[in-house]
């Protein structure tokens, strides 16, 4: 419980910081007068520029983090992430195809579609009938598909003229540029619904963690449950990617980071801590990316690896020292 309070506290502080800090600094006074009066520079920041951006970051980070935690529990592998099903690669490919064809659909939306399609393809291809598909097969197929999608995307991108390719690059990295309240509410609404579904599946997930045989003994159809849970996680990822683009590494990092901070044990607790950690990482990453260097604003995706990775490594080294891992 203490852990969750600590996580929540961090979230509050980072949200506040994200609203206050940027390329242009705004004092709390200005922001408060903006909130109250509904007009003026404070309002512009809160209402149009930073407010929706931070809100979207929280939402997208949360859904991505929860999805990542679910995958890691489902595949019992700390390296599992939606990318195991080739999601990010499919998302990236969709973006590149969209830009190459000159469509005006927003890139994140394309990304979500691409990711879902790949996931569906994987499922269809590995379906072997009621006998069930070994987890390893799913993972390997997913990785193979992911590689193919990345290769296609790389190939297409190398045929684009310079500035167009650079623009593609920034969407591929995952960007929270110009988010409005529509995006924030979209990810919040979808995320909330899916989160409830996911929490409902927590029991099934804990059973699966014991191993297939035991789970079936408990009366669970392991295969079906696995696909259901994976499906929820993919949809969660899609919801996040639809507003933020294929932000890398959050799904990977949020799980372990969340567990570290909250010492969560049960499946639902780990899902929630994953969500919280994901939100924290994305808000902070976006803050770092857009405000740390004066005059240079980078997309959020650039900072997710920069922030999450050292923390993960620090966790790792402490656990090695304690002989936990």
């Amino acid at each position, binding site marked *: 419980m203490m852990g969750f309070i600590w996580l929540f506290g961090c979230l509050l502080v980072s949200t506040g910081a994200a609203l206050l800090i940027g390329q242009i600094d705004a004092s709390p006074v200005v922001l408060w007068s903006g909130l109250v009066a509904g007009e003026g520079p404070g309002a512009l920041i809160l209402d149009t520029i930073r407010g929706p951006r931070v809100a979207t970051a929280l939402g997208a980070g949360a859904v991505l983090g929860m999805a990542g935690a679910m995958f890691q529990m489902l595949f019992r592998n700390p390296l599992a992430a939606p990318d195991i099903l080739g999601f990010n690669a499919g998302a990236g490919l969709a973006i590149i195809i969209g830009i190459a064809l000159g469509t005006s659909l927003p890139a994140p939306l394309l990304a979500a579609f691409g990711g879902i399609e790949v996931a569906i393809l994987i499922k269809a291809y590995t379906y072997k009938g009621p006998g069930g598909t070994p987890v390893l097969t799913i993972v390997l197929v997913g990785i193979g598909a992911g590689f193919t999608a990345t290769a296609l995307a790389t190939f297409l991108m190398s045929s*684009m003229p310079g500035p*167009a390719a650079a623009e593609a690059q920034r969407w591929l990295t995952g960007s929270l540029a110009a988010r409005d309240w529509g995006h924030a509410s979209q990810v919040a609404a979808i995320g909330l619904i899916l989160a409830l579904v996911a929490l409902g599946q927590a029991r099934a997930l804990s059973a699966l963690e014991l191993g297939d045989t035991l789970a079936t003994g408990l009366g669970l159809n392991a295969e079906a449950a696995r696909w259901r849970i994976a499906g929820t996680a993919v949809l969660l990822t899609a919801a996040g990617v639809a507003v933020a683009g294929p932000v890398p590494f959050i799904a990977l990092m949020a799980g372990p980071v969340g567990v570290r901070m909250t010492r969560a044990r049960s499946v639902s607790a780990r899902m929630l801590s994953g969500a919280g950690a994901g939100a924290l990482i994305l808000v902070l990453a976006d803050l770092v990316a857009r405000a740390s260097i004066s005059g240079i604003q980078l997309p959020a995706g650039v900072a997710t690896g920069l922030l999450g990775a050292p923390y993960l490594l620090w966790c790792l080294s402490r656990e090695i020292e304690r002989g936990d891992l």
Partner: protein
Amino acid sequence: MAPIRDKNSEFTRRKFSLCCGAACLAAPYVSANGRWIEVEHAWGTLRLNQPAERVVSIGYTTQDALLAMGVVPLAVRHWFGENPNSIWPWALKTLGQTEPVVITGEVSIEMIADLAPDLIVAIGSGIARAEYEILVQIAPVLMHASDEPVFGSPWQADTRRIGQALGKDGHAEKLVSDVEAKFLSARSRHPDWQGATAVAAWQNGSVTGAFLGQDKRAQFLTQLGFVPPEKLRDVTARQGFYATLSPEDLSPLDADLLLWTSSLGGSSDIARLPMRRTLNAHRQGREVFADTDVSAALSFGSVLSLPFALDRLEADFNAALDGRPGTIVASAASAGLTP
């Protein structure tokens, strides 16, 4: 921070239209009394009730047109290069002492809001619709015309549109015709260039390619009267801009004039390319090398950079095309490309 402009209170909906001649683009209007400006673009219509004075330039090359008309932008978008304030040599003298803010990476909406501009020029900036929608709440935004590609609108059109938004149509028109006249006079000075073949080529690592069609570098050569070599016309073009060649067969580059553009690799990769030595263009000393500044001027392809490039290249083109293999082309020599 200065007060943020509220779009609705300032712009009422009076429309004046004065049709320009049939030769004009279908869209833009300037009122009879010169006070209302409307310019249609790909994502809407730009409306100003007076010519813009505080301008933010977020297109990759739009600062050149602004500077040419005597307006120093408050902010400039950084594309590439190490120039202070991201202003290249051909635009330096128009800058004076001012130092515009440089925007790097993603367009920071906060920074733009803080500058309180009257106009945001976003032609060739690559911003997404979502970014446009937010920027337009800060100041009117000028985009490319709906029938132009995002990153390839002709410099004449860009200059004219920007001129309109600044209320300097006449000035813009004069700038455009001055540059075109300069090219025409170059053509008349060198009748031997008409119909000669020329290629603008690039080298990136081990990949060699050429610019084609609508690309600014290819257009530069066409505007001087050159034509692409026949073999090159057969090579497929990627979206009309450039083509990559097989390293085993560089013969499409064998033109009367071979212009190498530089990239980050400088000229050493080109110099070391063994296949290049088999080209007649090389053995007869018909290669010209465009160094960093000239190459940049060619890729900017703006109203200021094109005359700059022409000045720097004319002598070398002459030397390369004089029909005597013995003449050394200065730029090729310094780049180590001579036989």
